[in-house]
């Protein structure tokens, strides 16, 4: 993947971040992403993202589980291995409800987690570019993608004006690759936090 230039602006408060996102979008800058230490509600809307359809996928997986359980048990107990249990019907639906329910839940949960990992490209041994090591700690990191026409100095000044505590320019490759985090990253130096 080709390397690109990014302006990375870090905020220490989400209440400064929101107006900054709005200003950057109004000014026509392309926000590559905002990296936050926790789920900031409303930020996805502020960035103009569409709702995720992950729950719909979960529903489909669940239905698949229901159908799998029902059809398998029906085939086994009415066609392949019809047992006569005191003359009771072979198609004993009420007795199968527990297993049908469990498989519905199992398929939905496993399917959703795998889909989540696939969509977000998350897996063991996957390594991504991190614009700021404190994005998982206490900083909200807005990353703006630059193109040939972007005046980087203007953009840096603009971001400083929106209340960012740190602004820097990085050349990076976005996306992911297989790799190890200990190879080229700078190790964390302990800072003491006043109690």
């Amino acid at each position, binding site marked *: 993947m080709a390397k690109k230039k990014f302006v990375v602006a870090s905020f220490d408060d989400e209440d400064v971040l929101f107006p900054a996102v709005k200003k950057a979008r109004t000014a026509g800058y392309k926000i590559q992403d905002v990296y*936050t230490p926790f789920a900031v509600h409303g930020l996805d*809307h502020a960035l103009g993202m569409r709702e995720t359809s992950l729950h719909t996928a979960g529903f489909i997986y669940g239905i698949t589980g229901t159908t799998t359980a029902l059809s398998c048990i029906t085939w086994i107990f009415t066609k392949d291995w019809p047992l006569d249990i005191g003359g009771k019907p072979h198609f004993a639906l009420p007795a199968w409800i527990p297993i049908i329910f469990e498989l519905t*839940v199992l398929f939905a949960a496993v399917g959703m987690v795998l889909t989540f990992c696939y969509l977000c490209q998350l897996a063991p041994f996957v390594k991504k570019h991190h614009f700021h090591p404190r994005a998982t700690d206490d900083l909200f990191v807005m990353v703006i993608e630059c193109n040939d026409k972007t005046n980087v100095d203007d953009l840096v000044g603009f971001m400083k004006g929106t209340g960012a505590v740190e602004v820097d320019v990085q050349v990076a490759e976005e996306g992911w690759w297989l790799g190890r985090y200990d190879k080229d990253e700078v190790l964390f130096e302990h800072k003491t936090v006043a109690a």
Partner: protein
Amino acid sequence: MHLKYESQLREPLVYGHKTFAQVTEDIVRPIEAKPSKLWYVGFYIAVCLLMFGVYSVYRDVTYGIGQWNLNKTIGWGWDITNFVWWVGIGHAGTLISAILLLFRQGWRTGVNRAAEAMTIFAVMCAGQFPIFHMGRVWMAFFCLPYPNSRGPLWVNFNSPLLWDVFAISTYFTVSLLFWYSGLLPDFATVRDRAFTKLRKRLYGIASFGWTGSTKHWQRHESLSLVLAGLSTPLVLSVHTIVSFDFATSVVPGWHTTIFPPYFVAGAVFSGFAMVQSLMIIIRKVFGMEDYITMGHIEAMNKVIVLTGSIVGIAYLTELFMGWYSQNKYEGYTFWYSRAYLFSPYGWSYWGMMACNVISPQIFWFKKMRRNLVVTFFMSVIVNIGMWFERFVIIVTSLYRDYLPSSWSVYYSPTTWEIGFYMGTFGLFFTCFFLFAKYFPVIAIAEIKYVLKTTGESYKEKMHHLEHVPAEVFAHSGHGHTTVENGGHN
């Protein structure tokens, strides 16, 4: 500042004027520091217990379950008692992480991570008992439906024991996924603070390359919510199905329709007691008093007194039905085998009554709910009581049923039965000690999320804002309300 209004009457969920960085620091510190002497001692004891359990199980597998004192009518003894007990304990974790999430109970964030870990370890322990009770444990895969070469031969889908296989394995899988997906962001936090290459590498692998991207968070939120929605009926179904193991039989004392709700309430009851025991230890050992507050302890004690009373009503209902049904077998089981103090197992029934019904009533008093010593003591008592409950249900029903000629001799466990039980304690605590050392025991990202509405300093700020006129609060749109300059003039 968020304008989500939090009543000033509610006490803060996070004490001590924390910033985001401090939250990270406080929770990650135990992972980065060398474990204390106490940790080593505890871990050593747990591993010793585990080894004793492994030896007991080794004897069971080598010589068969004749190593246990099970007899002609008591085919289930300590093994299934322990199975039901451990599964029950697991339920509190899911209740806290899933049901309380759906009910928007903010206090769950302080305790959900450790409670979910407890669920997973408890279900692991529970699973050992039915598996080794099979005797020829290398054939355990026979209980899964798979096409085989023995003609058309399948498992019995109409059997509650098979429902249990599906229920427990689904429960374990879903709990594990729920727990681990919540851990991803926190592993990333630990990874980005790593001060050695090995830590960076291992937590890098564990965090799956999490970056904290907004889109990922959006999907993560959706995932958590749906998994919570799935886990809620799941957790109710699991103990319902465990109770079906008994309720669908025709043994007096088991054949009752009250079992499903009674078992679920009992499971939550014992599970919360176990969470209390573990939380009180964790907050003390790791100094997490700011995150696991007295408010948390009190809330859990309220759940304990509620579910304990539900269980108490179920016991009384059973006794009532034993008389009202005018079925002499039921009457004999409930009124003689159980409730009569001087019958062979009367002591276990009254032990159960004292521990589960009478003693938790102490939590009607606020002073007691907020007393750590009382809470810890009660949490142990409740778990002893819930063990007795399962023992009473299983053994007193089995040892005398219809024909006096098939009444069995008095059952008491062998060393190896007890050893197996001790071994699961070893397994549970070995896992829990490792978890406490290497995993963030409190959900860091979730604490940061509630910090701005329920943290102590934000509550104080909000208190001052109550006197600011409403026009100051400008609506900035995009579904997010902000006050620039923090609303101070």
